[in-house]
């Protein structure tokens, strides 16, 4: 099913939690709402679910206006950040709840309920836990119960609020994979909220980057990472170094090195911010061309597959560089602290936005 959010606004007092947001979710898509806390992503999810009522705008399900419909009528599966499992019910009864509260004419027979719930619990390897209470489960198990509880009523849309937020790193990795697998098997349109850019980029077909209640950019993981539309997207997705520069006669410089300026704001002259990904900077021990600037090594962290250098540019701004371990060794910097090196920016990792 497709979801269409059209110019939706939700205010809490004077605070615009969601401000004129338009997003389209394709049928069967796995979409991430990504943003820092307070960016309105959870409110947007709750608006789609019908748990919040928009102050303006419309929400369409498959072209049908669902704005006035209650959460109950929308048939969405909602997985809460803290799972909201029914604490007084067993795992089995939690999952069966959605089937048991159906109007009598739609309610499956008890045997059918048992069969479906067992099937769902087996799907997430929780068949053995059917008689436990939520308080007897681990975080990861609770999350899976919440997931299949939402799926039990065969929702048209699956909405997840920070599905992995409260879990430790290893469990998170596992559950990410199982969510992707489940999504691919069931082909249910899925929207999830996250503040973790890595999670969004890894899991989602498309990412909606939000900030201060507004949509900054919508695109595939690759698009938002490689072509960030705004300064916010650029700095929120992945690490960046920030340099201040000026555009003059359609050209900006990083030290003495010319950097590409998008045609949209190349015409004017003025202050710009130059964002450079740490891995888009190449370090050499000697100067061998004019498109390099000089910098001094301040600190080296060589633990792990990626070596992280902290440097100070010749004009005094601190920045970071990351490179693979083997390239660092090939540099042969020896005892590198306080050494001068020469840095070349790779245009693919350089973004210029108005200051």
């Amino acid at each position, binding site marked *: 099913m497709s979801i269409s959010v059209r110019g939706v606004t939700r205010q809490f007092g004077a605070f615009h939690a969601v401000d004129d947001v338009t997003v389209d979710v394709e049928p069967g898509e796995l979409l991430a709402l990504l943003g820092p806390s307070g960016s309105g992503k959870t409110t947007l999810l709750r608006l789609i679910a019908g748990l919040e009522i928009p102050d303006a705008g419309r929400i369409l399900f498959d072209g049908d206006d669902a704005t006035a419909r209650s959460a*109950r009528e929308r048939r969405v599966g909602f997985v809460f950040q803290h799972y909201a499992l029914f*604490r*007084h019910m067993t795992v089995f009864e939690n999952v069966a709840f959605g089937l048991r509260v159906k109007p009598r004419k739609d309610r499956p027979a008890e045997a059918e309920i048992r069969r479906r719930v067992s099937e769902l619990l087996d799907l997430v390897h929780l068949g053995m836990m059917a008689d436990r209470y939520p308080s007897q489960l681990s975080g990861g198990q609770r999350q899976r119960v919440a997931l299949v509880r939402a799926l039990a009523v065969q929702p048209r849309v699956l909405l997840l609020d920070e599905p992995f937020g409260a879990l430790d790193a290893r469990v998170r990795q596992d559950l990410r994979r199982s969510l992707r697998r489940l999504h691919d098997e069931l082909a249910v349109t899925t929207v999830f909220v996250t503040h973790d850019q890595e999670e969004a980029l890894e899991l989602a077909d498309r990412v909606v980057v939000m900030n201060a209640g507004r949509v900054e950019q919508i695109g595939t993981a690759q698009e938002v990472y490689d072509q960030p539309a705004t300064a916010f997207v650029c700095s929120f997705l992945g690490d960046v170094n920030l340099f201040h520069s000026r555009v003059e006669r359609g050209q900006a410089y990083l030290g003495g090195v010319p950097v590409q300026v998008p045609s949209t704001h190349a015409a004017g002259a003025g202050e710009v911010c130059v964002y450079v990904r740490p891995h888009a900077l190449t370090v050499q021990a000697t100067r061998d061309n004019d498109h390099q600037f000089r910098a001094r090594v301040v600190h080296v962290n060589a633990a792990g597959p990626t070596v992280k250098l902290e440097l100070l540019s010749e004009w005094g701004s601190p920045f970071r560089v990351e490179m693979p371990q083997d390239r660092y060794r090939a540099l042969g910097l020896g005892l590198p602290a306080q050494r001068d090196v020469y840095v070349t920016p790779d245009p693919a990792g350089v973004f210029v936005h108005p200051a």
Partner: protein
Amino acid sequence: MDVTQTLDRAPAAPALVAAEAPLAKWALVGLALLFLGFFLFLPLVAIFAQAFESGPSAYWAAVADADSRSAFGLTLVAALVAVPINVIFGIAAAWAVARFDFPGKGFLVSLIDLPFAVSPVIAGLVFVLLFGMQGYFGPWLAERDIQIVFAVPGILLATLFVTVPFVARELIPLMQEQGSEEEQAAISLGAGGWQTFFRITIPNIRWGLLYGVVLLNARAIGEFGAVSVVSGHIRGETNTAPLHVEILYNEYNFAAAFAVASVLAIFALVTIAAKAGIELKTGMHGRTR
């Protein structure tokens, strides 16, 4: 080196406290037990001793006496009216306070506490002032031959008033702490309002609710001050059990007074047992009121 020394020495301090503790502990426990024995246990024993002073048959005669039975009946009616009404009010008020923001919320919470804050005698006087012959609605009621004060309705009103806070007070913090996510989850799973209420809300608050009901019931049965003012003390008609105890006592009928009192004391013991049972069940140990 300094750090290591500090760390080495650290456990010594609690050990010192522990060494001092037993004496202080037993002194405090002993003092508390002495106090409780003198002020609570001794009177309880005295009630039963006095009640049975003239033998079991006299005890039974006093308890089964027509006026006593009428007093117990009226007390029971008052509790039967006060409990359901204040349970419904308490749930509704707690729901409103815990789930919604509205102007005057703080005022409502303070107002719920009012019956705890004012003396029960004043609560009773308020109803006399409102519905008594010299009161605001007195003449209007008299014209229509409706009697509230010095009659059963007045007793019910006074009992209702003094027992308002129990359930709401118990449920407001509980429902605030639990939040509404489970209810939202139920609704998103297709449950209706009543289904959500009976399958999610009530089970989640059931122990707190029961605790509130036990306290509310105890107060409804034991209330003296407010009921005394509005009752008129008409034997066999507007006398509740606590008022009956007072009348018997004032008539120097000590054995009968203590016999009726012992029934109330037995009820109090049952209440305490029920309360302890609930506390055991829910881990609400050490909670006051």
